[in-house]
């Protein structure tokens, strides 16, 4: 039996970055907000204290902070002719869980997208002509410009205390920063992180080749910082346990270290943890959300009525919740119609492994999730693609994320994978090996999409989400070209031996790449080809807002968190300053 609770002003599904940001904006406007999170409450000193946060077996090998596949998983296939099979252990991406969401266990790489990224379709057609794009490529413009989103990038960076060096301050280019970035209204809140030996060598090599290196913008702070909410973060200690780990000493920006301390003090905010939302409820017209139904850890089922519903789960689960709730027209790849599940995209990464003589000692354990030197010369449309036959790109660099003992032990190809010779090779190479990497964008295609699996159900009897995805020629060409350029820079660092690992072949969901899954409920200015408008408001259900990477029409060559968070701030601003005054569609359909 479902019991009905007293109504609230807004209900939030999922208390990660976007849920925390929107809860803060809406409670700040005086609304009563209930956040429903299926994972546990998470607190720095209690749940990932310095005394054991650096447990690689627990967190990296055994996935302690992530969702349990038995609670929810998805099926995967490369194309529509295959039978999709369920993921029973996480592989290429790591679905977050618990309060703070992916913000607890991200690396802290805090990038802005390029101005042209938001007009990727029209920009590339204008520069290279319509025939340059493959027929099945379904990239779209976002319906916003860089100038629209800039104030919200700024808000998130100042919330986090992001460490970096501006390359374009109000249109004035500045050496030492990223000269390709869009104009930013002010400097980063804290200076760039100090660079270790490897990134320093990379910077020297890049400059010799005529590129413009700069320190990666980092959510692991170069110095202590108190944000505009009054919450203080500490300086990063370069321990190198960031991605897949919680930060024990308050130095990585996360909802816990930036927003939640203020949010929990507000009497009009409430979080219900270990409560799984089953679906968003609609009124008989199907055009208005009336709240959500959720199940608690006792197995009790509750209806929480609300005036506004904010779907703030991880990208894949946002799409899944819409399909379960019957909101929006599901995407049909054969007709190219429908919007829910449309334009699923990912991220295309590659690497170069360089093995040096013992005179070059990289001390890889001096690291942080976003400490590195990057070049942006091959990102987006920062160079002429005309002769290369592909669009898009990515950043590349020497990012020293970790030197962890179990899984960061590079050995040259041909080394046995275990035994005495493997140990000897690890010992010989650990200090003298450097991996550089590319982080490429991913276009969207007609045959890459999300829908509900016809065969497999979850623990509550709901259909699993099905991912149909493969890499396309555009991205494989991009990865090859970028990896070659990266190898040239890396070669200049002076290794004895170098191995290139461009992305090649089919997408393999069992090998970790990134957790940057995107799309499926994308933003745009046409309800026929997008699920949400520029304010992340559902075209179909105007009192439903859907922030997250699910709104990306395609992915750019950067880590998504800054853009995800900036869009959430932009949406919150629109809700508070426009929607509350006149509830209804903020953009005419």
């Amino acid at each position, binding site marked *: 039996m479902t019991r009905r609770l007293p109504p609230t002003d807004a209900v939030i599904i999922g208390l990660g970055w976007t849920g925390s940001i929107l809860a803060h904006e809406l409670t700040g406007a005086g609304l009563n907000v209930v956040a429903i999170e299926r994972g546990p409450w998470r607190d720095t000193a209690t749940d990932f204290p310095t005394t054991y946060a650096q447990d690689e077996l627990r967190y990296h090998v055994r996935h302690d902070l992530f969702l349990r596949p038995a609670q929810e998983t998805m099926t995967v296939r490369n194309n529509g002719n295959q039978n999709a099979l369920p993921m029973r252990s996480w592989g290429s991406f790591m679905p977050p869980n618990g309060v703070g969401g992916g913000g607890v266990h991200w690396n802290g790489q805090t990038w802005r997208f390029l101005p042209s990224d938001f007009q990727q379709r029209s920009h590339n057609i204008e520069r290279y002509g319509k025939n340059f794009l493959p027929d099945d490529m379904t990239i779209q413009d976002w319906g916003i410009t860089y100038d629209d989103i800039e104030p919200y990038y700024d808000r998130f960076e100042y919330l986090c205390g992001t460490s970096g060096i501006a390359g374009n301050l109000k249109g004035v280019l500045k050496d030492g920063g990223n000269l390709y970035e869009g104009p930013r209204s002010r400097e980063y809140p804290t200076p760039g992180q100090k660079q270790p030996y490897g990134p320093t060598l990379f910077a020297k090599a890049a400059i010799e080749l005529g590129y413009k290196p700069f320190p990666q913008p980092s959510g692991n702070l170069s110095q202590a910082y108190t944000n505009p909410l009054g919450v*203080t973060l500490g300086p990063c200690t370069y321990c190198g346990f960031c991605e897949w780990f919680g930060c024990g000493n308050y130095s990585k920006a996360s909802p816990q270290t930036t927003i939640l*301390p203020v949010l929990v003090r507000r009497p009009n905010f409430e979080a219900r943890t270990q409560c799984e939302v089953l679906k968003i409820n609609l009124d008989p017209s199907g055009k208005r959300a009336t709240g959500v139904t959720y199940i608690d850890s006792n197995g009790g089922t509750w209806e929480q009525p609300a005036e506004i519903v904010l779907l703030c789960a991880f990208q894949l689960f946002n799409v899944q919740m819409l399909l379960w709730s019957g909101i929006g027209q599901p995407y049909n790849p054969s007709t190219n119609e429908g919007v829910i599940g449309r334009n699923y995209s990912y991220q295309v990464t590659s690497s170069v492994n360089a093995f040096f003589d013992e005179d070059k000692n990289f001390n890889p354990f001096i690291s942080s999730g976003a400490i590195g030197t990057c070049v942006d010369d091959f990102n987006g449309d920062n160079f002429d693609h005309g002769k290369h036959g592909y669009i898009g790109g990515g950043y590349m660099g020497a990012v020293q994320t970790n030197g962890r003992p179990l899984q960061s032990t590079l050995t040259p190809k041909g080394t046995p994978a275990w035994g005495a010779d493997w140990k000897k090779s690890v010992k010989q190479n650990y200090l003298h090996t450097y991996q550089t990497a590319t982080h490429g964008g991913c276009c969207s295609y007609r045959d890459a999409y999300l829908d509900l699996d016809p065969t497999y159900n979850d623990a509550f009897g709901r259909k699993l989400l099905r991912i149909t995805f493969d890499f396309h020629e555009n991205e494989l060409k991009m990865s090859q070209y970028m990896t070659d350029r990266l190898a040239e820079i890396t070669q200049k660092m002076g290794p004895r031996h170098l191995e290139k690992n461009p992305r090649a072949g089919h997408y393999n969901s069992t090998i970790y790449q990134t957790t940057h899954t995107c799309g499926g409920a994308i933003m745009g200015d046409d309800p026929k080809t997008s699920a949400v408008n520029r304010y992340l408001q559902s075209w179909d259900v105007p009192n439903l807002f859907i922030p997250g990477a699910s709104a990306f029409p395609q992915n750019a060559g950067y880590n998504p968190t800054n853009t995800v968070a900036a869009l959430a701030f932009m949406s919150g601003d629109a809700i508070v300053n426009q929607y509350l005054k006149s509830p209804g569609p903020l953009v005419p359909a």
Partner: protein
Amino acid sequence: MRSATFALLLLLAAVPAHAGSDGQSYDQISRGRYLATLGDCAACHTVPGGPPYAGGRALETPFGTLLAPNLTPDRETGIGAWSDDEFIAAVREGQGRNGHLYPAMPYPYYTKMSRDDVLAIRDYLATLEPVTNKVVANQLPFPFSMRFTLSMWNGINFTSGRFQPVQGKSEEWNRGAYLVEGAGHCGACHTSKNFLGGDHTGSALEGGVLQGWFAPNITGDPHVGVGGWSADDIVAYLLTGHNRMSAATGPMAEVVTDQTSQMSPQDLQAIAVYLKDTGDQSNPAPTPIAASDPVMQKGQAVYIDQCTACHGAAGDGIPSLIPSLKGSSSIQSADTTSLRRIVMEGARSVATDPAPTGAAMPSFGWKLSREQIAAVLTYIRNSWGNSAAAVAP
């Protein structure tokens, strides 16, 4: 008829009997509410999350448990039927309607309060919603359960009398003294107790142990007191729970939340001025234990591995986030109860509106041996200019 007369008499008894001020005026009630904050009455008389001043909160004393009574105007279970003089006798003399109060009620400090101030509190309490909540205060075991023993206690430990301003000291100093010694009852925790639980009056505010914590020396002693803090440091600590080197935790976190963060800046400044003028302000620091001492060496190894990530190699912490160990009077206190406890169990700093972070230290009790904890505390107490006795395992 007879019962009507009786009811009328009761009503008369409940009418505030003090002349000269309107017990229902805005000024009087808001002054009373502020004074109740100064007295931190809610700390004992309100169950966290429960109705204000309805009593029932358990107070753990060395002699057993007491439950704080209901102060709401409920006539049966609260103080609605009490006369003003009865209220004043309870607050200032420890004389309740049913006999002596136990000195967990800080009447030995409240005795310094003026009649006007106590009655203002009464007038404020009279505005609360009456809550029916019968509290049996006395949960003590024999023989402490015998209230008559308290007259003997009072004979030894209690001196009745109002606050007398000290001539030659500023008005601000005297206001601070009134707050610290009277309503604020700082000595209830920060003054050590004799075997009967009475104050060691000769060492007022020099620190005391209660509930498994050491409430540190808050006199102007430069080494183990607040002599090294500026008046602004003291005000910031009391107002926000944090200052440039320290953070409130344990029972003081609750005091900051309920009491000091609600005080006016002027009163906090007065407290700072007074505290800095108390105690032995020229107390010399002892000679530190040499860094070459084997225990110091062992402690340093533990410190580098376990503590530097937050407290820093120089022990100076991070302002507003991680307390400084360097120069900390708590760290150098003779009593190490709190230090051991914090290392063993961890501690959460108080979160306030101006300083909402509320960072916490994790527990090390599962990870470090008693010897390691003693060694690292000895190291911390004798590094970066600190000096204090070694900590025994």
